[in-house]
């Protein structure tokens, strides 16, 4: 069936007729990729979760279509990564055009020795559909469709939500509320808060085209980016592929374009025909699946945590679409928040641990906004001078490899290293390589006996002490998973784990439940590990 046409049933809830408002420890608002990821993660960690969504459908149109390696790894932990990868398409060949000539092509062949590719392209509605199916398998996760939060109050003890439904409103109380309700976040408005930043004066048209024949020879998948092409002078055009032979074209229109006129099929069809004729030298029949004219801004809230209400995803921060940083950073927000909420609710960590969510993800949002702004400035130069340099870079790129590295049509979304996080324990030993405290863990191919096993798949979702060599006896007494790569544990079949972790016999890494490095040692001690663990759980005394 057509996934996009899927709808979910609204049911009346006994909460509506309760004499006093029912209490829900954890409420997630918004069943997009971020809210679903968070709700599933919380439920998998044993919490009772209520997920409220204001409609009963999947995303309209493809929207986010590029899901990065880190997102897939998080979804692996939630049991849905494989479905995403099976359905998604990968590409590695990209071509960049300037004017009427190809400037260069690149092959983004992924680094070997990782289970997941650098990213896949997949329509957001597929991602959401797979996440909803997973959510529905979890008995302690309740989704209420067509339940719209219309009012919110909080005091030190709890949040009170008023929820509107087709049968009328009801009230509930909550321990914590995660606002994953999108860029126009009603919850943010209810708290009188804003997301602020730089608004770009430009408009873009997205058109999703279903083709009934292959676009490239051998049905290959390539990503093409045109700067200032003859069929769309002075603007940029991007072409890339989604599953089901749906291709996205992204046209920069300029600020003066009329959004209502531009999103009519009569306006879109000739634009698309021109790209296909001039780019591919032939007419390719297509049907228009979805189109949207959008503007964007790089902005964020000052603080992602406001008492018992915590913002994640687009409600907290917004970026330009270049570099696929919207949904991907939101899923990382969820990954960062879930284990902390659970630790607080289980009494294993102080409430202040939630401030570290805000600290870390605000830092990550700043990094995403920086990258996104840089790509935007390259793709859509806003002054004569920036256009001059942009075109000089593209001109040089044809002949000189160094300039190709300066061309920026959107940098690949990679997870932030959480430098400066209060949860990190600073290195006392010398290490090289990128896996410093705060860095996201790296995958590596291992083997258990004769069976291949990926490193990331061995992590149990709690804290893990990753030990190279042999684990000393005292480690068995630690309240965490001890994972040994060595003669008595997993085999580092290609030596890549030792290489990526700069490990020698005795080296140990303390990994957080969200797979960021909390601490590392050449010669760990019981007290050292326990102290780093306490710090990573937000203990103020450590």
């Amino acid at each position: 069936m057509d996934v996009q046409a899927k709808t979910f049933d609204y049911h009346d809830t006994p909460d509506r007729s309760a004499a006093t408002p029912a209490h829900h420890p954890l409420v997630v608002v918004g069943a997009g990729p971020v809210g679903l990821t968070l709700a599933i993660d919380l439920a998998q960690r044993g919490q009772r979760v209520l997920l409220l969504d204001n409609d009963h459908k999947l995303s309209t149109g493809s929207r986010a279509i590029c899901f990065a390696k880190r997102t897939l790894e998080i979804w692996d932990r939630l049991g849905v990564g494989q479905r995403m990868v099976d359905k998604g398409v990968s590409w590695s060949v990209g071509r960049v055009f300037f004017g009427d000539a190809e400037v260069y092509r690149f092959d983004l062949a992924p680094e070997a020795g990782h289970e997941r590719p650098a990213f896949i392209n997949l329509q957001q509605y597929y991602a959401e559909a797979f996440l909803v199916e997973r959510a529905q398998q979890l008995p302690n996760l309740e989704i209420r469709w067509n339940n719209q939060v219309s009012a919110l109050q909080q005091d030190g003890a709890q949040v009170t939500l008023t929820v509107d439904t087709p049968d009328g409103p009801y009230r509930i109380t909550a321990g914590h509320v995660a606002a994953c309700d999108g860029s126009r976040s009603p919850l943010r408005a209810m708290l009188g808060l804003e997301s602020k930043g730089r608004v770009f004066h430009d408009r873009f048209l997205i058109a999703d085209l279903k083709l009934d024949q292959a676009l490239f020879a051998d049905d290959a998948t390539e990503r093409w980016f045109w700067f200032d092409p003859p069929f769309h002078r002075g603007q940029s055009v991007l072409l890339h592929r989604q599953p089901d032979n749906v291709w996205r074209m992204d046209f920069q229109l300029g600020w003066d374009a009329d959004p209502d006129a531009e999103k009519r099929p009569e306006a879109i069809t000739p634009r698309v025909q021109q790209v296909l004729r001039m780019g591919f030298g032939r007419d390719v029949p297509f049907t228009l699946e979805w189109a949207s004219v959008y503007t964007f801004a790089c902005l964020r809230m000052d603080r992602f945590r406001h008492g018992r209400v915590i913002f994640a995803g687009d409600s907290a921060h917004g970026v330009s679409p270049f570099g696929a940083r919207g949904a991907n950073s939101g899923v990382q927000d969820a990954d960062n928040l879930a284990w902390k909420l659970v630790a607080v609710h289980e009494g294993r960590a102080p409430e202040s641990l939630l401030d570290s969510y805000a600290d870390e993800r605000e830092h990550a949002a700043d990094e995403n906004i920086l990258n996104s702004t840089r790509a935007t400035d390259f793709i859509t130069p806003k002054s004569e001078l920036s256009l001059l340099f942009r075109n000089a870079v593209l001109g040089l790129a044809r002949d000189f490899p160094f300039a190709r590295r300066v061309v920026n049509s959107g940098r690949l979304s990679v997870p932030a290293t959480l430098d400066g996080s209060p949860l990190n324990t600073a290195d006392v030993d010398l290490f090289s390589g990128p896996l410093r405290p705060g860095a996201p863990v790296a995958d590596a191919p291992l083997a258990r006996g004769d069976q291949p096993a990926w490193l990331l798949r061995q992590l149990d979702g709690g804290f893990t002490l990753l030990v190279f060599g042999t684990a000393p006896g005292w480690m068995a007494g630690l309240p965490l998973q001890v994972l040994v790569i060595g003669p008595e544990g997993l085999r580092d079949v290609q030596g890549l784990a030792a290489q990526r972790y700069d490990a020698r016999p005795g080296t140990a890494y303390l990994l957080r439940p969200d797979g960021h490095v909390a601490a590392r040692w050449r010669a760990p001690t019981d007290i050292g590990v326990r102290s780093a663990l306490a710090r990573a759980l937000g203990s103020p005394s450590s």
Partner: protein
Amino acid sequence: MITEPNLQSPDDFYEALLAAHQGLTLAQSHDLNARLVLLLANQVGRLDVLRDLLAAARANLEGTPA
């Protein structure tokens, strides 16, 4: 950043610089300069040095009639 004399042959360089712009319109000269800046930046390579060079050029510009 090197600010002491480092050019092998200043007069020859200056002549070559003007010769490179010979016959170009002002717009084309701007284009050429932009390309030259990028090529030279790659030659220098180090970001800290490049930042110093940018700052020095900008500081030198201050106080010059617009």
